[in-house]
């Protein structure tokens, strides 16, 4: 007697969340809960409602409307009605409402639901703004703050209640399926709220370093931050270190691979499930809703780990934290320029020289800063051959500094640069290409960390 369950005519699984009304009518007809007369009445009601809404849309000025606008208004009407029908505990009650209430009344009731959901979503957005993750990830910031604001500005519950008008580019770890309109945004913000809540258990620096380990340019990537943090935290639990460190070394990843590769998928899922419980205990996560969200996301993480073990890419899942100290940049100064009069005489002398060796001598004896050297390369009307030979006077760092200031961009140079600048850029590029691979790698490394003053 403990397991008494009501036998429902309509199977909830057959109902589509996105097109609820249409799927409800389909299912109800299949189960003989709606007669042909009922369906005709519903169709009439929908057409009457559409005619009324089109009149409102046109402002009583026009009787006709483009088909695509009419379709959009129809979709909006059906979505609004669906929102009310979804509020019933059982689909059978929703079918009864369809039979006993006119479509325009159902629409009015649905509109109240849209409005209350919109208000709830606005409140949720305020909460998300408060617990927002302080990150430089562009997609996160532009979607969670500006994108959602854009939604509130553009959302039109009267004529396109089903449309969100924005793209919500930042992905959530637990994907949202079959939801549109205000329902989608509400669910999206809920997910973001839980993800932010979870990330708030870790220090921002650790999250930043972890994401740097994922990719140096993570700020420009469309990635889910929570997924990386959650995966890394699970990894920490698996290797037996504090989750708050978010640090899994490459040696530990190798050990983990050896340990997990002998297990079946089911066993790995169980191990990860246990790690999740330990993680929640370690972080003292008391919020039931957050726990539920973590449980919902766990299959995503487990599946990633199982796949990574199969193709031996566990190091791409458990990211090795980036060490910021390695990335120290250094500043390079081009030095002080000589006075104009002396510089003018120097350039005259160089230009009057017939032989390259004489020019090199003058340069060696008179130029003492890279800024003068750079000006000389541009102003003394040297040939390509001469520039290539004069560049030999510079060391690797000086060459890198010149390249940093004169990067080789064959597509844009012709439009934006002067002829002498184009020649210098091209010579620098040729000069590096003619050097050994070791020299080229050194130049590339220096270019990454040099900062020109």
């Amino acid at each position: 007697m403990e397991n008494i369950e009501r036998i429902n005519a309509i199977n909830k699984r057959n109902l589509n969340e996105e097109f609820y009304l249409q799927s409800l009518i389909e299912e109800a007809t299949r189960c003989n809960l709606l007669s042909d007369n009922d369906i005709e009445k519903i169709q009439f009601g929908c057409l009457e409602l559409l005619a009324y809404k089109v009149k409102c849309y046109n402002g009583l000025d026009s009787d006709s409307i483009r088909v695509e606008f009419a379709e959009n208004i129809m979709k909006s009407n059906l979505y609004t009605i669906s929102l009310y029908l979804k509020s019933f505990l059982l689909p059978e009650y929703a079918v009864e409402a369809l039979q006993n209430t006119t479509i325009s009344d159902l629409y009015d009731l649905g509109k109240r639901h849209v409005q209350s959901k919109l208000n709830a979503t606005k409140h949720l957005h305020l909460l998300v703004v408060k617990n927002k993750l302080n990150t430089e990830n562009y997609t996160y910031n532009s979607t969670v703050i500006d994108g959602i604001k854009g939604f509130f500005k553009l959302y039109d519950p009267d004529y396109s209640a089903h449309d969100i008008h924005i793209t919500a580019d930042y992905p959530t770890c637990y994907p949202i399926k079959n939801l549109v309109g205000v329902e989608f945004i509400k669910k999206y913000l809920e997910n973001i709220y839980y993800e932010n809540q979870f990330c708030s258990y870790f220090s921002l620096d650790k999250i930043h370093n972890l994401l740097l380990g994922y990719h140096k340019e993570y700020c420009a990537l469309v990635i889910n931050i929570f997924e990386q943090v959650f995966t890394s935290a699970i990894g920490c639990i698996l290797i037996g270190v504090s989750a708050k460190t978010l640090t899994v070394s490459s040696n530990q990843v190798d050990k983990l691979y050896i340990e997990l590769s002998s297990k079946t998928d089911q066993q790995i899922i169980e191990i990860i499930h246990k790690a999740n419980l330990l993680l929640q205990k370690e972080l003292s996560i008391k919020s039931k809703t957050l726990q539920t969200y973590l449980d919902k996301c766990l299959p995503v993480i487990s599946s990633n780990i199982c796949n990574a073990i199969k193709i031996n890419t566990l190091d791409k899942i458990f990211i090795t934290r980036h060490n910021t100290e390695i990335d120290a940049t250094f500043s390079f100064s081009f030095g002080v320029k000589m006075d104009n009069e002396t510089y003018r005489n120097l350039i005259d002398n160089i230009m009057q020289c017939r032989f390259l060796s004489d020019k090199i001598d003058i340069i060696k004896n008179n130029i003492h800063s890279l800024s003068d050297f750079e000006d000389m390369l541009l102003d003394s009307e040297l040939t390509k051959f001469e520039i290539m030979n004069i560049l030999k006077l510079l060391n690797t760092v000086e060459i890198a500094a010149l390249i940093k200031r004169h990067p080789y961009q064959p597509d844009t140079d012709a439009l934006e640069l002067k002829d002498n600048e184009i020649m210098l850029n091209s010579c620098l590029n040729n000069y590096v290409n003619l050097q050994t691979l070791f020299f080229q790698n050194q130049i590339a490394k220096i270019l990454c960390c040099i900062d020109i003053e």
Partner: protein
Amino acid sequence: MGFTNSIIQKQAINEILKCNDLTEHYGLILTHSQAIELFETRSYALNANGRIEFGGGIIDKFIKIFCDSPYLYMQNYAGTLHELIEIFYFYKNETLDLISDDDLIKFMKSCFDGSCQGSLELLAARELSKMARNLRYGYAFDYNEDKLDVAKEEE
């Protein structure tokens, strides 16, 4: 749904035929079969221009406004109405629905009787095209650049 369509069609045709009471003073009368053809032309034009219409439509509005035109007589009456209906829906799209039905019909009437002198080609290709362009560019629908130039030259 077929039942509903036939009721709507009957209602619309009756409304068209009722207009005969007004138009017979101008010597213009539509037969029952002509009224049906006009209704079919409206359906065709709506379909061809990707539009949908609720209610009786604009045929009776056209009849009431155009019946006193000096360029309409019994022989070209029905044919002109067919053309006007097609032109109307085409320019509803071209004007991006920025002009109301009544304003568009009145504008068509004033051009038809005025500068076009009863020519449907001039109405569609010159006057309405210019008007649609004005609306799309944010000018008043009767804005005329040529007139402004002449006025400037006179000054």
